[in-house]
């Protein structure tokens, strides 16, 4: 049984997380500077979440016609564990739990931007009864 009972719940939880990330002034500034579009291609439950640099930075839940700079393929459970910091990026990438397409330097550059999300996620997950 996956942590997210269905796609809508996942969009609600992770959408809230990424919107919180884009509200962080430092993370937002660095994300816009990096000029990238990230696509999370998620399975179990199936869905897509995009973080785009368009319109000053926005989160899109569902399919779009955008062309991603970095595409991360992972399960809903891996997503949940990653943001809870129960799964580190190198271990996840190495074990194939997260597969990344896109220039590795850009993937590595993204990692420090994620700190506010690590801080925010436990509260968000708790609020939605996921932990």
């Amino acid at each position, binding site marked *: 049984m996956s942590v997210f009972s269905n796609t809508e719940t996942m969009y609600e939880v992770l959408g809230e997380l990424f919107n919180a990330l884009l509200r962080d002034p430092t993370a937002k500034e660095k994300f816009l500077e990096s000029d990238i579009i990230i696509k999370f291609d998620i399975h179990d439950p199936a869905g897509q979440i995009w973080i785009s640099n368009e319109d000053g930075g926005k989160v899109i839940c569902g399919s779009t016609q955008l062309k991603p700079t970095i595409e991360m393929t992972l399960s809903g459970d891996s997503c949940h564990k990653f943001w809870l910091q129960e799964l580190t990026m190198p271990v996840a990438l190495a074990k194939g739990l997260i597969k990344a397409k896109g*220039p590795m330097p850009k993937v*590595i*550059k993204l990692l420090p931007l994620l700190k506010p999300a690590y801080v925010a996620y436990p509260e968000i997950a708790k609020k939605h009864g996921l932990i």
Partner: protein
Amino acid sequence: MLYTELNLELTDEHQHLKEQVHRFSMEVLRPASLELDKLSAEEVVKKGSIYWDCMAKMYQNGYHTVLISDEYGGLGLDPLAVHIFWEELAYGSVGFAVSLGCSCFAAFYATMLADDRLIEKFVIPFVNCKDASVMSCWGITEPEHGSDNLAPRSSFFKDASLTQQVKAHKKNGEWVISGQKSAWISNGPVASNCALFLNLDPSKGLSGGGICLIDLHQDGITRGKPLEKMGQRELPQGEIFFDNVVCPEEYMIVDPESYEAMTELTLGHANATMGAYFTGLAQAAYDMTLQYCTERIQGGKRLCDHQWVQKKLFDMFVKVETARAFSRAAMIYNMNTTPPDVKYSIASKVYCTEAAFQVTSDAIQLFGGYGLSKEFPIEKLFRDARAGMIEDGSNDTLSMTAGNIIIKEKLGDE
């Protein structure tokens, strides 16, 4: 004159990087590597030697940070630029290229984890270093384990009777490390820190490994004499001994759960880089030979006027061009794909090192007696190329590892 660039989409930045690194490599690294080739291994690593001058110049240019994100002050080059950089650096000296490549091991791992303590300890001092005093090494090879350490997912990896000789156990919340790394540790005699591959759980054999980042200037660490070897003599290599060395828990970055996968990931990047290095070496040998053949008179005419010589030069040209095309493709694919498809990196390493060996061997044949003499640097390039078929995994063992991957992919878990 640089080779004809077949990639019509190369940017001005790529072209500038290629010319700049090529110039540096020929003006600084080539002459220094020829001088260092005449010295003993001890003289090479001695403070004040031209090895240190050259490394410092590369650090001052920021070359040590090509794989470090600009987020941390590194150059953070894109995958094609990384290939161009390593190829041109190795054009002048493959030994210096390997030394510089190993220098960033600990910092590169630390950026993958983005942990503040690791960044503070291993990345910031490395990026800010201008005199090469902050330098890493890849501590993997051991007296009883060479290329077998680079065969994750092979059946013997889980054999409990085979374990790494450097082992760590937990004591009072910290890791305590003992054992020996072999004389083949690149940068071993000169590094200030190490990405150390070691055993954490002997019951799992080699797959019970871990990786820690460790400061080499601490109690319990000693080094052997720098290794005297046939080729790449400008690259310092030597043993490292660990006697109850304490390592903080947070510096143990990989445990047995992901050891095989991280070893494979490391191999994927290291072997792809080897492909770039040895393309550069092969190009250098080809260029040197082409020039010689336009000057040397034999049988009443220039060597290049003999039809067989023209054919031989063409064969060398094809090997260099295919090495570049393949190693670029493998590196670009695997720097855009995580986890990397390691069989392509292995194929690139094996193909390019063998191409470099064949090209340098053909070069010696065309140089004739002078090819065997110290009067021309081609004999050094031949010795350097020979080493490439063993370092970073022997080509035979790597080929078996990649063959095993191909069959597993075809048959699945059958």
